[in-house]
């Protein structure tokens, strides 16, 4: 069965789902980068 049907999921829902996991993850990456900078000081 090929997925011929157009996406019915609203793009905002996809954005919301990614933001839900992406924001904390990016926050964690940012904090880690701040700590990692000390290696080069």
């Amino acid at each position, binding site marked *: 069965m090929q*997925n011929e049907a157009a*996406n*019915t*999921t609203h793009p905002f829902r996809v954005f919301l789902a990614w933001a839900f996991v992406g924001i*904390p993850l990016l926050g964690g990456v940012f904090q880690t980068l701040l700590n*990692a900078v000390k290696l080069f000081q």
Partner: protein
Amino acid sequence: MTTMEETKAGSGSLFGFLDRERTVAKPGFNRWMVPPAALCVHLCIGQAYAFSVFNLPMTRLLGVSQSTPDDWKLTQLGWIFSISMVILGISAALFGRWVEEGGPRRAMFTAGMCWASGFLISAFGIHIHNLWVIYFGYGIVGGCALGIGYISPVSTLMKWFPDRPGMATGMAIMGFGGGALVASPLSVWLMGKFATASDVGVLKTFIVLGCAYFVFMMVGAAIVRVPAPGWKPKGYVAPSAATKMITKNDVFVYDAVKTPQFWLIWVVLFLNTTAGIGVLGQASAMSQEMFPGRITVVAAAGLVGLMSLFNMGGRFSWASVSDYIGRRNTYFVFMTLGFVLYITVPYAGGTGNVVLFVCCFLVIVSMYGGGFATVPAYLRDMFGTRYVGAIHGILLTAWSAAGIAGPVLINYIREYNVTHGVPKAQAYNTTMYIMAGLLVIGFICNYFVKAVDARYHMKAEGDTPADLKTAAARA
């Protein structure tokens, strides 16, 4: 173990919404909703890597400002993480088939319940100051959440992304690496908020984390979907004939463990993880001892942070690369490049080349993460999609074994060298050469991984012993 038949029998009950049938996506469902669902679970259980932030505060639960004789020791607290890692491997192996047949929502829901319960039980353990309760709570109940949660989205993602299975599982498993990056600053911040003159704040932090992780994981369970049978992404054409190293057949989980391919991949993962975990756990001490006065405590902490990022990034990038060069070749790269890098580390230490040392460690740790993220797709290539989650669960025992072997190898050999008069700066050299040797063995094992013999292939849909038993009973 619950079979599909038993699962169906449970439909319509209180937890009917967890059934696999209730999670089948409607036509037009956007498959890019599934990776965030997987990340909801993996980001939470990835907290396990950051558990060490609680170790020091937990040695002062009674004394608050300093440890009292009745306070727990660091050596006792270290067992909490170790137990959870061992239970991760055991539960993934034991519940793999149940996860596969019950569907991702049931597994994610169970993992969320166990993970939150683990924190709440541990909070109770702190309240009554009983370490055994914490061993049970975080170690055993939380360990079950780790095992079930880790494998829960794997096969679902590969079914949604048959065109890029490595990238799909890499995204989820990247979340496990990233979970610690979120949990570590969050836990420190929460403990700071809850700390008072008479409380270090760990108990309240556990309660808040347990509740927050529960909500987060339930969102994942709510939005996850499985594709309808036969679904394929638009424009995707499956290869008409199976390539030599990518099967089109499925192998039943308990038949897979009878094949040499499973155990060869087990050894490859074990060796890659042993080599990486030893370095990851000791990077701070090792860097300071190899470059005394040049890498300070603060700089070493920065190195550990940078390694966490490469561990996380390696999971996504190496797994994505494996979609193009093949899983076996990706592991050849890990073993060959790893060998070169491990024997370069003593050279970097000897010549005082910090930049070379840091670069070696970062690439090594990226391949450590990459090994975890690439292996589900490797199993799918060998054993098909149907039972890949369950097979992956059993394979994770290699992780538990490596979790013991890696640190033991690096610590004991260092200790032996130091007590025999080897300068601290050179105490790790032997270990690095041993790690390089392990990767040579890994290379050989990977070389012998060939296509699975046709006698192990499932003959038709419903060709599991459980299905056959049910069919016989009906007849």
